[in-house]
């Protein structure tokens, strides 16, 4: 059972998504405004937040930013505007994924599951006494799913952490954006590659010293991204 905080202003969509989530056995708290959503964050302690971007009062983007200040709970944007710049801004504000409305409960369920998985499905589980690996100033602990820089733990959103773990599992290997979408986000090959770009951008702002000259997450022009080589 998953605790889902749904922030959605349209009563019909709110009720429909709640019904769908209940059908999959999730516990849902549905609120109509961003203010109510932020207020429920601590008492309800959701496992995941489903967030509509078009909200009256405080905008979905602002809600997203405020949640990220205090919490690394997975956030999935529910957007009625598939290709809007808002989605990109939402992703850059810290959301982990987005779902275009209208979406069936199966799609929502599958996306939630993917986001909540802490490691990419194809990534070999570390755990038989693996030691944390050090790369430059970074210390990546695959077993504890933790990343430290200069010995201080970094607060990474679930998608950032997952992407970093996936890329650093095979340093120097280049992955295309499509491959990363499939592996890390469990989207289809044809998903929105801007998800990857936005997440790389956020990740770099947290782990790189110089974002213009990234050491860890490097861009391979015309191909994709790779970790290192340092």
């Amino acid at each position, binding site marked *: 059972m998953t605790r889902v905080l749904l922030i959605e202003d349209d009563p019909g969509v709110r009720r*429909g998504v709640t019904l769908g989530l209940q059908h999959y056995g999730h516990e849902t708290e549905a609120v109509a405004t961003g203010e109510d959503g932020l207020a429920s964050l601590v008492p309800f302690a959701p496992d995941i937040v489903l967030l509509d971007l078009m909200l009256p009062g405080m905008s979905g983007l602002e809600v997203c930013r405020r949640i990220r200040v205090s919490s690394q709970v997975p956030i999935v944007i529910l957007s009625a505007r598939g290709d809007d710049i808002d989605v990109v801004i939402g992703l850059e504000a810290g959301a982990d994924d987005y779902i275009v409305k209208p979406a069936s409960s199966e799609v929502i369920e599958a996306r939630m599951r993917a986001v909540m998985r802490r490691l990419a499905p194809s990534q070999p589980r570390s755990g038989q006494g693996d030691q944390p690996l050090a790369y430059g100033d970074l210390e990546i602990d695959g077993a504890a799913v933790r990343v430290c820089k200069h010995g201080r733990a970094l607060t990474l959103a679930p998608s950032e952490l997952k992407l970093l773990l996936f890329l650093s599992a095979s340093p120097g290997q280049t992955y295309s954006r499509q491959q990363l979408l499939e592996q890390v986000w469990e989207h289809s090959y044809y998903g929105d590659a801007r998800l990857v770009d936005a997440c790389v951008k956020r990740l770099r702002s947290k782990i790189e010293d110089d974002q213009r000259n990234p050491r860890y997450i490097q861009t391979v022009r015309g191909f994709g991204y790779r970790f290192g080589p340092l």
Partner: protein
Amino acid sequence: MRRLLPRGLRTRLVVAFLLVSALSALIAAALTFRQGRAAILDRVRDGAVHELRAQIGSLAPDLPYAPAGTDLRTLALQLDRAGGSRDGWRTAAAYRGGALVSAAGPAPALPAPLRHAASSAHTAVVQRFHHAGEPWLAVALPVARENRPSEPSGLVVYASFSLIEEERDVATLLSAARAGALPVILLSLVPALLAARRVLRPVRQLRSAAEKMTAGALDTRIRVTGDDELADLGRTFNTMAATLQADAAALRAMESRARRFAADVSHELRTPLAAMTAVTGVLSEDAGSGRLAPETAEALELVADETNKLGRMVEDLMEISRFDAGAAALDLDEIDIGELVRKTLGLRHWQDRVGVDVPQGLRARLDPRRIDVVLANLIGNALRHGGPSVPVDVRARTEDDLLIVTVTDGGPGIPEDTLPHVFDRFTKGDAARPRSEGSGLGLAIAAENARLHGGTLTAANAPGGGAVFTLTLPQEPT
């Protein structure tokens, strides 16, 4: 013949101007020449007659009543000597139609008609004639009896002389006229060019304005000066341009209103659809659980299916609205075409129904999501129309700098009358086809996606039957 006429308006104007000025100069010169020549000759003639008459007036009284040959010879001699103002005239005299008597040497040249005319004349007769290649003037003067001027005495005095001097004067006149006409014609080139420029400048302005309007700049106007026909034409042009611009703006406004309406409607439909779509899974599952009455289950199934279909249709409408609004953007990546085709087929579980022929390692820069939409539309279309057993093939190759992907099927092909409209919105390949297949926007969206890449999408029928859709993309979209 037409070829010989100059093509440019300027040339024609200048040539016409020159022709007119040449003609008027020639006519003026010709008239002046004629007048001058006549005046010179008249003066010579009058002078000669006057001279002759004066000489006769002083000499005739000395003549006997019936002069003999010697008298006549003396007279002629005296007349020759008294040549007066005219040097070198030759005179002769004849009495009553008798032989001509001159002073010495041969008789002066005299034309026969003059002699004839003089025999019956009462006054001086003059005739110009040519003699030895020179123009000559001959004067015949019948001498009247003294005291009885009306009665001819039978004595006729002739004088003839060369007009070569006068001819020279006339020739000078002619060359003067000619020399005057040429500079006039040359000088008239200047006003001709100025006039042509003046006429042609508004014409040139009109032309460049019309060209600009053709290129789409409907706000083009020309500056109208003056009040002539060309200015009127310019004003009419401006009015026409204003009308066109207003019409085009109205049409564009109407079109964009219609498109915005479609976009707004689909947008508005999305929220209720989102609510419904979120529960279709619940409905389908309950309908299939066997816990409900069969009719209720069927009704639920129907609602769920149709809701999903409506959702796809609204998605397509939204997508085409984005193209119309120019809001569709390319997200380019360098992609392996073989992998792209395999993923498209795999996502839809078509891999066993479709043949693939793509060279190894064929890569192109494109928006994979959009090309997936194109391929899925084409292949889905081929699978639907060809029937379950016909072969559907996807082939890709490069030609020059182009990536060419074809989707062929072994079905009945596209009816000839539908072929030009397959990419139109809401065109169904077959009028009898059930409504439920596709939104009617699939191929229109596919074509828009191809265009967004700077490429094309075309439909045709293969010679051996079956439809062929060809997607042509630049390998490096700009």
